């Protein structure tokens, strides 16, 4: 019997090793797996590389993780945004390495990892500073930049619904990076607002097939990042 459900957040993040590359879903405040991030903080893994689009805002979730000092490097497209005070402090103090990646390249690099590709040529960033030092190739008269796959040891994902096989649905635009990150990590950990019986998600409604998911923990009424009184606020 396949059962990817785990009974607690602590069990969900068990075994995450120091030095891991952690992919964290979300765009702005939407889709951030707040409870899983808190569980990772409690779990204590350090020397982490975090891959996520934004570098956190305020002092919760991604920013809270950064503030523990356990993140060595962050890979993201838009670290500097409203409220990214923790990131800015660590960055200017030289305590956090930043790899800046154009947003579409960030996503496609993870897709490549998940899809078993050795990389890809993209027109994005050709002729710019972010292509410096990278292999380029002219294909049909246009310049492309070679980008390598970006694989995670762990992905932390927020879903709306899951079943015990790990099939997932996401709420509205909270989907963003989640399906790609789920396929790009060795250990994909999901917090779902609701776990349903097999068949409870219609096959054609499955947004991420369970093959990409390893652990599922139910977190009913999750905190929505960025909202003061968040429980269920979006419902």
């Amino acid at each position, binding site marked *: 019997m396949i059962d990817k459900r785990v009974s607690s957040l602590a069990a969900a993040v068990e075994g995450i090793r120091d030095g891991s590359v952690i992919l964290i879903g979300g*765009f*702005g*405040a*939407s*889709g951030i797996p707040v409870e899983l991030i808190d569980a990772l903080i409690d779990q204590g893994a350090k020397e982490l590389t975090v891959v996520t689009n934004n570098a956190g805002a305020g002092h919760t979730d991604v920013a809270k993780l950064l503030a523990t000092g356990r993140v060595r490097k962050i890979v993201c*497209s*838009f*670290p*500097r*945004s*409203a409220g990214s005070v923790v*990131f*800015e402090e660590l*960055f*200017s103090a030289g305590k956090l390495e*930043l790899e*800046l*990646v*154009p*947003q*579409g*390249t960030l*996503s*496609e690099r*993870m*897709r490549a990892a998940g899809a078993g590709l050795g990389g890809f040529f*993209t*027109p*994005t*960033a*050709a*002729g*710019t*500073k*972010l292509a410096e030092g990278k292999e380029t190739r002219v294909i049909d008269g246009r310049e492309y930049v070679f980008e390598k796959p970006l694989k995670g040891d762990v992905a932390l994902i927020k879903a709306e619904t899951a079943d015990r096989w790990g099939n997932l649905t996401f*709420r*509205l*635009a*909270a*989907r*963003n*990076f*989640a*399906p*790609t990150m789920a396929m790009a990590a060795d250990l994909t950990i999901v917090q779902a607002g609701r776990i349903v019986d097999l068949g409870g998600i219609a096959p054609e409604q499955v*947004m991420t097939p369970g093959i990409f998911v390893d652990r599922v923990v139910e977190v009913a009424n999750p905190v*929505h990042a*960025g*909202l003061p009184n968040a429980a269920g*606020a*979006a419902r």
Partner: protein
Amino acid sequence: MTFKPLSRDEIARRVGRDIPDGAYVNLGIGLPTLAANYVPTDREVIYHSENGILGMGPAPKKGEEDPDIINAGKQPVTLLPGAAIFHHTDAFAMIRGGHIDLALLGAMQVAANGDLANWSTGDEKLPPAVGGAMDLGAGAASVWALMEHTTKTGEPKILERCTYPLTAAGVVDRIYTNLAVIDVTADGLIVREMAPGLGFDELQARTGAKLTLANDWRVIAL
């Protein structure tokens, strides 16, 4: 001679009139987003957002915001009937794959060859942030740059070569400023329209690249 530069709203209004019926459009933050308010109501335009939305509508009423319906600037938006939601990788396949007909982007500098600079001033003290700007610049079928014609201190932002780090090379098709509408062509920068009362020499004096006045140029009508 006195002339009247366009206000931000007027630039947005001028741009809005040119967004074609049936287009799939990505709007940058700020002035580009404002332009959507001025598309003639008989046109159907589908707005795309990098975080996986086609069919974005206007901002919601106060109290009706949904934190999982936001645009690329992380502001709450609405979904129109017929909207679609998808994941990030698909959103950028739409961009790089040339499926987005038009990207309206704010700009810090634009060069005569269509080079776009809108993500960094090159200030090493500030942590950099690029977001989807490079993907949009490289990928959208057509790119329009929207900006003030000069900096706050009067330095030209349209140049022979950008001095800021590039976002994308040779991609801008059209420039809308508070002084003019300018096409970027293989023959250089062609001025199509100028602000009321503005003379070509005055425009050229505020521009860091050679301009050519189109034979059929017009005063910007609002």
